[in-house]
């Protein structure tokens, strides 16, 4: 039997979560399935990817001897449950391997938008943010969640 205090806490949490959901669209509840980049941004990212990343990660993101694939099950499993910000920061701080941090945040965001499109995450109306703290609020989920009510 639950204590009244526990019920109170649960109720308060439910109410505040509900309040958050009622706002649209809220960063806290978003994932890679919510149209977090635009088609145009992905098209900007494509030539940057080919210039800066394809040498190691492959023309088709299938990976190669020096770098892993950026599409497919292994890639998705690596980031599943983490945030888009985690992936963005990893790119920003450590890639390309020869000169990490050389690309601008905007370029990194565009490349990431291209990667998201290659992984068949849907595009939307707003561009992918280039601020890490914004991207940290977006969940990376390998599996498409069940339809929301």
């Amino acid at each position, binding site marked *: 039997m639950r204590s009244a205090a526990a019920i109170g806490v649960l109720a308060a949490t439910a109410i505040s979560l509900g309040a958050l959901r009622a706002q649209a669209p809220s960063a806290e509840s978003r994932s890679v399935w919510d149209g977090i980049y635009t088609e145009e941004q992905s098209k900007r990212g494509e030539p940057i990817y080919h210039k800066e990343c394809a040498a190691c990660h492959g023309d088709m993101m299938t990976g190669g001897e020096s770098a892993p694939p950026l599409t497919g099950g292994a890639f998705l499993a690596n980031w*599943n449950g983490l945030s888009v910000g985690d992936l963005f920061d990893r790119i920003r701080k450590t890639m390309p391997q020869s000169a990490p941090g050389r690309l601008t945040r905007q370029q990194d965001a565009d490349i990431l938008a291209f990667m998201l499109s290659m992984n068949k995450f849907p595009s939307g109306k707003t561009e992918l943010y280039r601020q890490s703290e914004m991207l940290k609020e977006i969940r990376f989920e390998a599996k498409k969640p069940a339809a929301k009510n």
Partner: protein
Amino acid sequence: MRQRKSNALNKLSLLAFIVSALLPAAASAQYSPKPTEWPSYAADLAGTRYRPLDQINASNFNDLEIAWRIKTDNFGDRPEYKLEGTPLMVNGVLYATAGSRRAAIALDPATGELLWIHGEHEGKRGGAAPRQLSGRGLAYWSDGKEERIFYVTPGFRLICLNAKNGVRVPSFGDNGEVDLKLNDDQEILPDLITGEIGIQSAPVVAKDTVIIGAAFREGMTPKSMRNNKGYVRGFDVRTGKRLWIFHTIPKKGEFGYDTWEKGSAEYTGNTGMWTQLTVDEQLGLVYLPVESPTSDFYGGHRPGNNLFGETLVCVDLKTGERKWHFQLVHHALWDMDISSAPILADIVVDGKPVKAVAQPTKQGFLYVFDRVTGKPLWPMPEKPVEVGSVPGEWYSPTQPIPSKPPAYSRNGVSIEDLIDFTPALREKAKEIVSHYHLGPVYTPPTVSKLEGPLGTLTLGTASGGTNWPGGSYDPETHIAYLFACNACVEPIGLVAAPKEVSDMNYVAGVAGREVEILHGPGENAGADSPKPPKKRAAGGGFTRLDVDGLPLIKPPYGTITAINLDKGDFVWQVAHGETPDLVRNSEALKGMNIPRTGQITYNIGTLITKTLVIAGEGNITTTADHPRGAMLRAYDKATGKEVGAVYMPAPQTGSPMTYMVNGKQYIVVAVSGGPYSGEYIAYTLPSAE
């Protein structure tokens, strides 16, 4: 010879017998490694990755706990996410390379305490290196009195350190270093700072010689048909003096020069040796696994068979003189670098003892030779292969195909290899591959065309089969254990390269995309300005090589195969690695009972002990049994049955090793990947209560 009591050596005449079989004949004042140590990158100079230890076994593997762990984040200027090292443990100290600068570190093997660290600050030369990060390891040498550590920096300098304190040995080379870009029988172009040449593998020390190969950038889209060459050299372990050099691309007048027609040996490069070599100290012979020549997939600028590209070469340890060779692939077009150590195995074939060498490969063949004479143990007849039609290309009409052992992983692609969990998935896969040229092993690449073929779809090429971690070998049972990627699909298509981008006629690419020079790791920032984008044909040339996210190729995705070398037959083969999350959780496969599939990774090394085959997983999974992470698995080496598994927070990215110290056995493995930066983790059994 230093005598050292070890209370770990409580095993007996059987152990002594094994020890004497493993060790080379002791030269005077030669350090002799103990079976409780791991004195060389691959355990020993034969490349066995085997130690006769059994304290950790099937009855207790699941009880392993973490003894210590060390992140490599702060050993360089930034964290690394691809830690590929295998440490050494010799004379009570653990040595490893670590960190983005490829520092050398020494640790207490029981506690992981840092004893010393040495890092070379190489500035631009390090930044321009074709092979970055901490690399795969280092080498140890002792004459019983002095102890030295050798490693090669990203900027391609051989460093000699006092193993006791990590300080450069002034009497070696130039105050403790040899500049490997010099004295290489060639001028490294364009200059010593940016000239492309390096190495990531561990040097090998045999008798009193340090042997170093060479590595280059990824060769899919070279800027030029011309590159520096990857000769192999032996240096004196005390003075650093160069003792010999082997020209992997022959110079004019040397044997094999005419296998590079139209004088192409003059300008073609690469053809290095970037993986581990092995040495038979008793015979005084070194076994060199040589890689591809310049341009992995297009050879129109280097007509001819191209010796010694993709060739196993045996040279004299003292002089570097070639004793025999066998070219595994004539006129390389599939990036089938010989990717791992040629394993030295003393076996018994048809009742006769043979000193053999067994070469695992990307193409899934294990080539077995008499290592004295170079004669194949089982026939490797030249068989006709498809001749392609890429303009300007030269094709070898035949390739040697080993008759035994059977291929241990897939090479070539046919409809039968495609996903078949359901007929619908198979049909989708057939549609995808209809855009590609398919065929058996050695089906040549095609020019990429929008209307098809986009290229040749391949398995057993760039990242197929066995890669740099190599195989393992049990000298007691004569069984080789080989990890292989069985589903690492690689499309190989060629596109014409504009003159501003490359002087080659063709480079790797897909029709419909602009051809950019694919910058390899280490290329100077700003060296190439962006090209204006080409007009894209509608639809481009991109087809996803998965089927609704599921792998295109059917399981098993990754395997470990046990091959009896006395007979050339398989003993067992198992899928290695938990079924990927995407497959296990797939809606399309709900309710189906799919046996464990193994994983699509190319870089898993195996460790053999008295009773176990030990290998970690290369992919992250999240299962009912463990949170997101990867498992270090142990198999019964006789049957392949899994007998235990322990959790790792990230995938195995360096091959595991083992040793005993203070009566306890440890297993150390490098993990990294995705969001997890590099870490060495040591496992041991819980202390007895």
